[in-house]
């Protein structure tokens, strides 16, 4: 199938999905951003600086690691793309360096961002410090409580963390308030969107900055195995780590692409974040996508043990890829995720982020589909050190 370079179209559409559903006040800023991105995406000096920073400062390329003991355990060859080893402890750095560099070239002085788990806020604080740009991070009160460690890290880097009291006080409300702030300060401020959501051009530019994951992965697996993987698996909240690793494999139709959504406490409880699997089409945060919503179009509260997946929508490109039957959508519950989290820690000495553990949990569920020689690559999008407080409440060890 021919895909790369076609989507989104000039209007930001992936089929029916995406678009620019934004208040009028933001339209000029979005057009300006679109123009700037089109100008710099093929600019050699921009690309060079972007990669240079990710190498020397971020630690790219990240390893593609053959997880030997996990492979023996599940019965196929499992490789982990170690985005957890990127500076900041997650794939988020790729996007923030890209956007902050773009903002700098556009002459913007300040960065504003939303954050759920705190990973994107922390990454934005890193970029703010690196580029010397004033940084404000909007974060839901509920998330501030469950991610105190990340709040502290952001503050340590000089960013201002602004608590969000509106709505469900989580990621979606942090985006609302962040966008409201941007509406009021649009002239000198860049809104640094943390995932492949939001109005055009965000889903496009976040994908382009995250693509480095898949480009590296492809090269690495060819060097290591001389063939492409049978499947690539990644967790999906907004979807940036998933599209990042998957994009350069979309045209390789023999590579299964499997996105894993958070089933939270279980489908039947209604406490989940399965927007792709169970959502209906709608418009939120500037983009047409699958959404968890009631019959009247009001957005429902999502749930997941991992704040990074706790979002009632999902990137428009994932919606489109699902519709094309190119993306397979699976789920993992909080409990399944915790088991896989612990398993990887014990088997490989790697503590994965709760987000990434959803992909590991899904592999556990579908491992019977793979043969011994089949290759499965999992995007280990982040490190679990940020999650230890949450894990500790569920998993206690005794000192004998």
């Amino acid at each position: 199938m021919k895909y790369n370079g076609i989507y989104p179209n000039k209007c930001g559409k992936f089929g029916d999905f995406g678009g620019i559903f934004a208040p009028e006040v933001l339209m000029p800023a979005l057009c300006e951003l679109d123009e700037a991105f089109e100008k710099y995406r093929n600019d050699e000096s921009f690309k060079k600086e972007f990669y240079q920073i990710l190498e020397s400062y971020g630690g790219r390329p990240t390893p593609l690691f053959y997880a030997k003991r996990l492979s023996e355990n599940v019965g196929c060859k499992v490789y982990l793309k170690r985005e957890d080893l990127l500076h900041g402890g997650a794939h988020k750095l790729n996007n923030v360096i890209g956007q902050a560099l773009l903002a700098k070239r556009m002459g913007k002085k300040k960065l504003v961002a939303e954050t759920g788990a705190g990973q994107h806020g922390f990454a934005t604080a890193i970029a703010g410090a690196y580029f010397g740009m004033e940084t404000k991070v909007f974060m839901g009160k509920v998330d501030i409580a469950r991610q105190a460690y990340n709040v502290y890290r952001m503050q340590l880097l000089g960013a201002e963390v602004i608590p969000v009291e509106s709505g469900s006080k989580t990621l979606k409300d942090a985006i609302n308030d962040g966008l409201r702030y941007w509406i009021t300060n649009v002239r000198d401020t860049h809104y640094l969107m943390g995932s492949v959501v939001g109005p055009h051009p965000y889903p496009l530019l976040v994908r382009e900055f995250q693509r480095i994951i898949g480009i590296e992965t492809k090269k690495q697996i060819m060097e290591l195995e001389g063939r492409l993987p049978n499947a690539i698996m990644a967790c999906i909240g907004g979807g940036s780590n998933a599209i990042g690793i998957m994009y350069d494999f979309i045209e390789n139709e023999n590579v299964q692409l499997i996105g894993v959504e958070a089933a939270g406490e279980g489908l039947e409880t209604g406490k989940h974040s399965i927007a792709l699997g169970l959502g209906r089409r709608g418009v939120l945060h500037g983009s047409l996508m699958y959404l968890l919503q009631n019959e009247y179009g009001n957005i429902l509260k999502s749930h997941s043990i991992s704040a990074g997946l706790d979002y009632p929508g999902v990137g428009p490109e994932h919606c489109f890829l699902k519709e094309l039957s190119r993306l397979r959508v699976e789920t993992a519950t909080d409990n399944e995720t915790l088991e896989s989290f612990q398993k990887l820690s014990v088997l490989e000495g790697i503590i994965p982020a709760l987000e990434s553990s959803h992909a590991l949990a899904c592999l556990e569920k579908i491992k019977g589909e793979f043969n011994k020689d089949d290759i499965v690559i999992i995007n280990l999008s982040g490190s679990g050190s940020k999650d230890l407080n949450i894990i500790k409440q569920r998993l206690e060890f005794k000192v004998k």
Partner: protein
Amino acid sequence: MNDTNRILDLFNEKNSLEEKYFMPFLVCGDPSIEQFISMVKKIALYIDLLELGVPFSDPIADGPTIQEANMRAFEAGINTKVALDTIKKIRTFFTKPIVILTYYNILIQGSETIESSLDNTLRRFKESGIDGIVIADLPIEEAGLALKYCKKHDISLIFLIAPTTTDDRLEKILKEARGFIYLISILGVTGAREKVAQITKETIKRVKEKIKTRIPVFLGFGISKPEHASAVAELGADGIIIGSAIIDIIKRNLSNFNKMEQELIEFVSSIKNAIKRSN
């Protein structure tokens, strides 16, 4: 009740745009459905058009005042169906134009496809008695379907113009705009402010110069006092829209409904008087 559009009638019959118009904004169902209807009855005399917010859970263009009003309305049980019933009740005594303000997602649910939902929802709103609609997150670039079905159901699709709207886009918007132009006076979300922004004057002038047809310009966002109202009327706006300052009155008097209504009447009549004087 379906075959007229009161906005177009209002601006036609005068045949000149010398009068200044006042359109207050209330959130439908705030603080309760009954109290809301009662308030509309009380202020009906002093207003020229009525703007009703049909709440959305995630209103990114609105400041804290209107967000809180939305929450009160949700608690009072508002949703699309209840809003339609409420507008029908208002239509039993209110004959002036009604404009609703909402977000796109509210309009595209309920039927099989987005297009059929939009067709259906707009038809139901028209039948309930609305004349115009403002969709806060629908820029001209995405407005194709909404224009088609607003035309079909004889609803004026009212577009917002901001101080940052470029001339290029301004022309595109003016080509499709019906009813009136909703000019955002400031760079920001809704909310009462102490002063009328400097940016207002040049924006009104710029927009007025571009207008080729006879479409009135209403100014909203940030207007909170009779002095503001008369000032912006003098700057050349044909109408003013006040939301957050009115909702502040509701919020201040939640425990005393009589006082709430009394203050509301005083406020809206003072605004109407202020713009009358500047005529």
